[in-house]
């Protein structure tokens, strides 16, 4: 038997450097946290910033232009991987900066918490840059397990621990489903590599084991995306987590799983779409209806945004459904565009909530922001732009994103799904506009503690940047951005090149 000993060249270390830098940063943060002298807020803060900026620079610089697979597909470097890694790192960098301006700063900038945070990001970077099922699973678990602990114990209270336990129990169940699905795919195809699975699968169409594997994987992925009926953890976890982490969960986790789903369904399993398309269509339709209807009756803003994120996952799933037919890379490009738009808007909305919160009120209700336009006019304006964009009104990125997604679905004759999507969007108008009405047309109410006691330049910059990016992607940039997304998404369907200049050893 021959074993290919991989030669771990300098090139390999360079391309994997984003992951390696974050791992190193996590270890440094953990060790610094132990020391009394080095464990201060400032040191941990600089370790976090340095590793995130370093990883970001490495991800931009070190990625090859052509998709290359290292270690038989375990690490996949290319344009799509770089897109995912840069998006995740940017969001986590902004979230780290925002934590510095909130009341949670002394809790977040501690060695063990910072180390958990960096490892969660590491897991996400691994997941977006792999086509090996084992690595994908390890990456997903790395990000999930860290989040279970962070959600409940960054700022422990009974409410947040309840949310964390729910998240943990349901998350472990979903991980088991996903692992079972991957194992069945391995048993049926004899390979753990997505490219090889995609070559083997068309010959096994009649096999129920393959179908079962695909369906189990679909259930696991739907859970991670918080698609109904696998969404039960999302409202509780989103509401009980500190808002900075809610922002992270709503944006980076979604980005990671959407890229994984694009590789999995639009890439490898496109030839057997008969198996997964009906299930995914069902899940998408239920999410759009249930998410929007449940969001109508929420009084907590974070809980409302959680249900709306379920609906947005449904819209993104439409585009994944559309990629089943032979339509090139347009649907995947559309979902990536929607993802970028959703990330910008969510980040804006959650950073405003994060800034308004204080120690005694870390879960804002709809009543709390009544008359916000009079007390905090710029925050109210930013939140209004975000709400318009969530609802999909022109001239925001939300409108263009929905346009691309529905367009790609219509090209592939998924009229029913588009109809449900449009109905869902019109339901969503009600609860998004209600926020704006409350902020602009109601009188401020007397709160026991004032919202956002001190102004922060950083928060203002972040909010301004998200508003500008939002409007720019909605008006002048869509064409250029979409071209870039199409370039990025081309890799999904193509098999990667290999960088295995390895020597063989036989025994």
């Amino acid at each position: 038997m021959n074993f290919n000993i991989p030669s771990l060249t300098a090139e390999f270390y360079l391309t994997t450097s984003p992951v390696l830098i974050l791992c190193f940063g996590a270890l440094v943060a953990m060790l610094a946290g132990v020391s009394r002298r080095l464990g201060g807020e400032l040191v941990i803060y600089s370790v976090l910033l340095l590793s995130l900026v370093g990883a970001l620079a490495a991800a931009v610089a070190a990625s090859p232009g052509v998709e290359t697979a290292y270690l038989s597909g375990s690490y996949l470097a290319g344009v799509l991987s770089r897109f995912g890694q840069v998006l995740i790192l940017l969001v986590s960098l902004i979230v780290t900066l925002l934590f510095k301006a909130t009341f949670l700063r002394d809790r977040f900038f501690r060695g063990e918490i910072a180390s958990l945070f960096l490892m969660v990001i590491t897991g996400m970077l691994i997941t977006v840059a792999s086509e090996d099922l084992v690595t994908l699973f390890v990456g997903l678990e790395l990000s999930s397990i860290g989040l279970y602990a962070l959600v409940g114990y960054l700022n422990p209270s009974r409410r947040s621990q309840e949310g964390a336990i729910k998240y943990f129990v349901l998350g472990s169940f979903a991980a088991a489903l996903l692992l079972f699905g991957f194992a069945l795919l391995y048993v049926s195809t004899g390979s753990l590599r997505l490219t090889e699975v995609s070559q083997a699968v068309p010959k096994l169409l009649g096999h129920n084991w393959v179908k079962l594997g695909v369906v189990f994987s679909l259930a696991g992925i739907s859970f991670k995306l918080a698609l109904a009926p696998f969404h039960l953890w999302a409202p509780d976890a989103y509401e009980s987590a500190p808002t900075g982490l809610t922002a992270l969960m709503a944006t980076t986790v979604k980005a990671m799983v959407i890229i994984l789903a694009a590789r999995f369904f639009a890439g490898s399993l496109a030839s057997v779409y008969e198996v997964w398309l009906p299930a995914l269509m069902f899940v998408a339709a239920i999410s759009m209806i249930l998410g929007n209807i449940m969001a109508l009756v929420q009084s907590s803003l974070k809980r409302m945004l959680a249900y709306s994120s379920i609906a947005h996952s449904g819209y993104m799933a439409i585009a994944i459904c559309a990629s089943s037919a032979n339509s090139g890379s347009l649907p995947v490009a559309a979902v990536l565009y929607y993802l970028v738009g959703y990330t910008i808007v969510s980040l804006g909305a959650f950073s405003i909530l994060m800034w308004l919160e204080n120690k005694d009120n870390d879960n804002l209700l709809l009543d709390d922001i009544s008359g916000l336009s009079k007390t905090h006019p710029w925050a109210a304006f930013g939140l209004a732009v975000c709400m318009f964009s969530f609802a999909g009104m022109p001239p925001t990125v939300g409108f263009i994103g929905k346009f691309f997604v529905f367009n790609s679905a219509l090209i592939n004759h998924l009229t029913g799904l588009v109809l449900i999507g449009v109905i869902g969007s019109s339901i969503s108008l009600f609860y998004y506009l209600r926020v704006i009405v409350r902020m602009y047309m109601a009188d401020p109410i007397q709160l026991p503690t004032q919202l956002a006691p001190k102004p922060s330049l950083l928060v203002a910059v972040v909010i301004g940047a998200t508003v500008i990016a939002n409007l720019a992607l909605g008006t002048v940039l869509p064409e250029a951005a979409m071209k870039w997304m199409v370039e990025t998404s081309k890799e999904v369907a193509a098999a990667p090149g290999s960088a295995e200049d390895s020597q063989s050893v036989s025994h």
Partner: protein
Amino acid sequence: MTQELVFLAFASLIAICSMMVILSRNAVVSAIFLVGDLFCLAGLYASMEAHFVAAIQVLVYAGAIVVLFMFVIMLLNLGPDQRKHLEVSAPEIGVLGLTIVGFLVIGGLLLLGQPTGVTGPLTAEAIDNAGGNTYTVGMVLFTKYLWPFELASMLILLAIIAAIVIAKKEHIKDGDKRRLAHG
């Protein structure tokens, strides 16, 4: 045929032991059934001629990890009052049983007589020719699966840190005090 019988025997033992782990009222009994569970799993590996994995399964899981479980259970020392919370009622067992039987029936109908898939390159003969189980597992871990193997160490470190963060009790008290002071 013999292999299938061995598989069926071990698989049903695993199912029974797993059920007993969650149904037993005494945590120590649960842990003992967990040992049985892990031993049967090792038996499954051995019946598939993965002797190295079977031995490691017994050494690491049945030997080390369950012993740790027992330590924790003994240190916690659950009295009869706390055990009451762990009881399961008859309807719950009924639902559980019905679900399992339902899955078995559906699975049996769908999957009976289905081809189970393809044989990979690592057959028993190939492994013997290559130098045995231990050698092959080591080679595969450090060549093909090097990246996930190294990352798994990161995963374990993360789990340890997460467990320590969760186990720190003082912060919860802090939060409660603060709420009392303001409430």
